[in-house]
């Protein structure tokens, strides 16, 4: 028991284990910290910044910051929530998110986070970028209009599948996910059963022929906000 690390999130006492991140320890204790680029089983990326919390007043990404004894963490406060809302709004205007016909709608983590944060419309202007779609692969497609550059596909393919099908190219606003081929996903060794084919939190990398399978009203986030399952004690 001496290995337990005690700290506080929003006034609640949390007991973490050495080596755990704030996000993991919080989750274990039933505290949901919003996140997008985090995925269980993948190396934390710290890129979306949605999981940012204030640790003793300093902003840190909860998915990469290890727990330390006595730390005071601010998570679900007005200030932090407002900052997260801004980040989620940025992601919406950065891409072309046509929720109305997206196969991922209702099961999309970005959309669900916007619902949870109460976003009716982003305050930022839509950038309407020109992005491409790759339908070449028989079983999986890429719609880069929806990509939020979280790197889950990159890490899943590299670290879990051992294939390195995806990586980032370009810099800044020109950054995008490329495939390990001249252009086409079909020319890679991606298999529909790969972890990378199901790692996408949005509808950017999707399996073909399974869209819209679940009717509206029965999808993941139709009735309960994302994170409810953690807050209700189910891990």
């Amino acid at each position, binding site marked *: 028991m001496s290995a337990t690390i005690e700290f506080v999130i929003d006034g609640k006492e949390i007991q973490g284990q050495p080596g755990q991140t704030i996000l993991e320890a919080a989750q274990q204790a039933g505290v949901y910290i919003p996140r997008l680029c985090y995925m269980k089983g993948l190396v934390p990326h710290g890129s979306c910044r949605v999981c940012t919390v204030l640790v003793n007043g300093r902003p840190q990404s909860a998915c990469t910051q290890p727990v330390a004894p006595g730390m005071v963490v601010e998570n679900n406060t007005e200030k932090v929530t407002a900052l997260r809302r801004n980040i989620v709004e*940025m992601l919406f205007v950065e891409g072309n998110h046509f929720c109305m016909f997206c196969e991922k709608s209702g099961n999309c983590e970005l959309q669900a986070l916007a619902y949870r944060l109460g976003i009716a419309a982003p305050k930022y202007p839509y950038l309407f970028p020109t992005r491409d779609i790759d339908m070449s692969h028989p079983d999986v497609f890429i719609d880069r209009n929806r990509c939020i550059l979280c790197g889950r596909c990159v890490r899943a393919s590299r670290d879990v599948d051992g294939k390195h099908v995806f990586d980032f190219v370009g810099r800044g606003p020109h950054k995008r996910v490329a495939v390990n081929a001249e252009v086409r996903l079909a020319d890679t060794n991606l298999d529909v059963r790969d972890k990378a084919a199901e790692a996408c939190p949005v509808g950017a990398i999707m399996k073909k022929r399974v869209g819209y399978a679940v009717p509206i009203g029965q999808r993941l986030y139709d009735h309960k906000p994302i994170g409810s399952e953690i807050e209700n004690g189910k891990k």
Partner: protein
Amino acid sequence: MSDNLATVVRDICRKYGRERGRLMDIVRAVQEKFGCVSGPAMDLIAKEVGVRRVQVASVVTFYAFLSEQPKGQVVIRLCNDIIDQMAGAPDVARAFEEELGISFGQTTPDGKFSLEYAACIGMCDQAPAALVNDVPVTELSTDAARRIVRDLRKHMDPSRLVHRLGDGNNAHELVHAMVMNNIHLRGPVIFTPANRGEAIRKALAMTPAEVIRAVKTSRLRGRGGAGFPTGMKWEFTRAAPGDRKYIVCNADEGEPGTFKDRVLLTELPDRVFAGMTIAGYAVGAAEGILYLRAEYAYLQRFLEDLLDKRRAENLLGQNICGKAGFNFDIRIQMGAGAYVCGEETALLSSAEGSRGDPKNRPPFPAQKGYLDCPTVVNNVETLACVTKILEAGPATFSEHGSPGSTGTKLLSISGDCKVPGVFEVPFGIKLSEVLKLAGGEDAIAVQVGGASGQMIAREEFGRTICFDDLATGGSVMIFGPERNVLEVADKFMEFFVEESCGYCTPCRVGNVLLKERLERVIAGQGEPADLEYLQDLGQTIKTMSRCGLGQTSANPVLTTLKNFRATYNALVKKRTDGLQPAFDLGAAVGEAETIIGRKSEHAHA
């Protein structure tokens, strides 16, 4: 041709041991040889080095000096930072375009010339300046630009453009540059006569712990701008578990308006290399890396030669200066054009042969840095100070400056002043005194600390240069009465949009949005609510970004909002008609008017 490509790429990869960690050197060499790193070249490199093609692509597409598409035999990169713009870069740009018949971003049909803009190339005191391949050409005029193109058409040899040589080592045969040092004030620490080897010998007579104690006693703080205590950094690195440790010198001087590291590396590189060696002794490292920005490639041969000399004199190598068991050597890692690589963890990613993405912290470099080994990353000037501290003793060092900021600071001063150049000043000096030194007393605004620093208004010229007040890596940009500070801020935002690595959301997206709204305000389409929008967005970028670049990228807007509020207030006005002033129906229908061939009734009513 493709056989040739295969052979050359293979030879290049072998030269670097087919090591993944030397990918930067490999792609740089391929770029130099073929003017691009093409798809087939990436395939070949990937195969030789044992990585995926997409990993090679991720590196090639990250850096400004590398490209997938073929570049001209000669690439002219005109510096377009704000200081160069003020000094006439736009006219020079037009002259290049007219003479070459292409626009910026293009290559001549004969494949001979490419024209590009570069972020600050570290020549603000001799602006406008450009790089012609590796060769810096400075104090450009429209005539000079035309002459450069005409001369190049004759010989295609950029090194023959150097008709006059700069001062000091710029005239050294291995540098052979027209660059000037412009050292206008020599202080008691940096610009003092040096005795090669003295500091190292003194250090080696002490124990490593005593060397660290001496640096701690001097209260030396990092000169890159963040001001972390150097001795403490060394101590952490020394204490970190691991057999292999590294000393990295950050010579990726990319902050707009700074060029003092260039001058240090030109005039006092021995001090820098000595500082690295001493650091190696203190923390128990056997290898050092000088990460040199691509813009300073013209110094590479000179520095390599000096490393050879130091090896010959046993100031590097095995059992240095007869100290049994102390082995240390230094290699130069060239960058490839990315401001973010000045951020220490991004620099390490780059030195490891990857994209210059910053790393997550913790772990810090002192625990896990280069190749996951404990690593000290110090600025060029910091290491030069170390050498002086060992030479003259910590007390002599700390008697200069102010209590919280000991020693002197090199300032790179540019812009609207009589004598732009490098000044070694004691910490604690008032900004007004700095302006007097450089002949910039009529400034209306001074940007201290580069694009990521602060825009200071006249009322605050009494503030002091030190870590506790105006911290700066050395950049001081002076703006005279005819300048528009908001346009300067906009120029800095353009810089950050270009230079963001794109890893994290707030920096990648936020800066684009910040620039858009700032430009709306500058265009007179802003409302008071837009200033709140700028403040909130800027604060979000500052708070939520992952590395120092993003955390400071909103500063041009945030500090002008604070210090030049009246300028903003004069531009915005509250609207009562409920319309969005930025929406311009005339502009929005313009294209359709042309296609259809009639004028809009609504737009021109």
